[in-house]
């Protein structure tokens, strides 16, 4: 029975015997010895890069399905013609609740007939106004069921601008595709465009942490016994 020790002894004895070529052979042996190690590192790097690409590029593409809005709405065009900015169409109800996306009746006030040249308007008038069918808009900022968000307190009391959370949507000439998370069903605007969660503008993400961050900074309230921040029931229901 030969133990690993015996084998190494044998090898060292062999190389010791052939002194003359040893220096050349030694180089050769070194290269052969590192060969497999090099491959392991190479495969590791290939695998690492591949999984990074899958994780950061392929997976997000698979995770989100893209949907087009039923009508490609031009915000910039409408903001020009109305007097009261966003609140001309996105109104508060009398009880202080927020109406969000306008209903068909609101649009139909002006769009009973096709007014312009736009093919999108034609679709809107023919498919929805004429048939008195509500437009199934996809809402980018839709929050989960357990969230209570009050537009009233943010806009009326704190005097916040719509842009702070929604971004410069009023300047857009067409609606971006709605990306829906296949697992959760929520819009990509909640997680944000950047998979790494890098936030450049205040409207890049709409996760709980983003709400909490601003609440901590702006209100400075410490009403929660558990967290010493704003209480949970401020935004949850």
């Amino acid at each position, binding site marked *: 029975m030969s133990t690993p020790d015996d084998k190494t002894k044998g090898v060292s004895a062999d190389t010791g015997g052939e002194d003359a070529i040893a220096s050349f052979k030694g180089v050769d042996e070194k290269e052969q010895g590192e060969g497999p190690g090099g491959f392991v590192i190479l495969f590791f790097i290939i695998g690492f890069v591949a999984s990074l690409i899958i994780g950061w590029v392929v997976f997000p593409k698979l995770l989100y399905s893209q949907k087009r809005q039923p009508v490609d709405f031009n915000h910039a065009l409408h903001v020009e013609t109305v007097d009261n900015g966003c609140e001309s169409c996105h109104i508060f109800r009398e*009880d*202080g*609740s927020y109406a969000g996306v306008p209903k068909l009746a609101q649009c139909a006030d002006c769009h009973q007939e096709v007014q312009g040249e736009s093919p999108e308007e034609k679709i809107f008038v023919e498919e929805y106004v004429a048939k008195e069918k509500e437009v199934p808009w996809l809402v980018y900022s839709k929050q989960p069921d357990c969230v209570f968000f009050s537009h009233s307190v943010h806009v009326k009391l704190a005097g916040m601008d719509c842009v702070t959370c929604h971004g410069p949507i009023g300047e857009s000439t067409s609606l971006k595709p709605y990306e829906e998370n296949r697992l959760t069903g929520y819009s990509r605007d909640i997680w944000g465009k950047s998979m790494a969660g890098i936030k450049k503008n205040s409207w890049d993400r709409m996760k709980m942490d983003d709400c909490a961050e601003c609440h901590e900074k702006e209100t400075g309230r410490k009403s929660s*016994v558990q967290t010493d921040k704003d*209480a949970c*029931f401020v935004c949850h*229901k």
Partner: protein
Amino acid sequence: MKEEQSKEKVKKFGMVIDLDKCTGCGACMVACMAENNVPFKEDESKKLDSITWLRIYKLTNGKPFPDADICYLPRPCQHCGGKGEHGHSPCVSVCPATATDYSKETGIVSQIYTRCFGCRYCMAACPYHARYFNWWDPVWPDGMEKYLSPNVSVRMRGIVEKCSFCFHRYQLAKDKAYFEGRREIEENEYQTACTQACPAGAIAFGDLNNPKHAVYELKKSSNAFRLLERLQTNPKVYYISGREWVRRAGDNYLKDEKK
């Protein structure tokens, strides 16, 4: 803006229930179930795993006929403030998930369903049995989904739920007040569903700190008591009864012990 926000008064919402007025009709329980989307089972005869945010208990004085007396006691979550009003109520102290919280601004003990993972420590800690566990996902009879309140999120299997003093009504009332440019809400703008449903007017709800609210005076009555007061949980639900045996039933007094 920081200064503006802190101008808002600190509130302590609480309830005073007149047990001599309560007839035990159960309207408050029904109103509560409907208001808060409380799930129910097809067979509700097994009460051990029923969910009742507000529950009416029947108390008896245990005496024979001429002296026999009963009393109905509605029991919502007591929204304990804890010793010294620090908000360390029994359930908040034990929650490992930060799912239940105490707000120093309203005095309301909140339960965040999406945060809860169902360990049920809070149920064990609560001396009032005010907390309930969802053993199943709710099953609504056909078409009933359309009757659910959108203001209260529906709970899922595996989490604990309890009375929230209809907190969503407070949120909506504030929404309206802010829209109209007011900072404070009126007493009648925020009332719980059970308070409004009670035909006998036995339940009063409001800010215990606010002298303008009915509960402020009611809680000072010499007939007022709270449940298991000696545990020092400091509940925000007061009961009133002119009957001494009812007041004694509020805690575990010894037979010959003077209250």
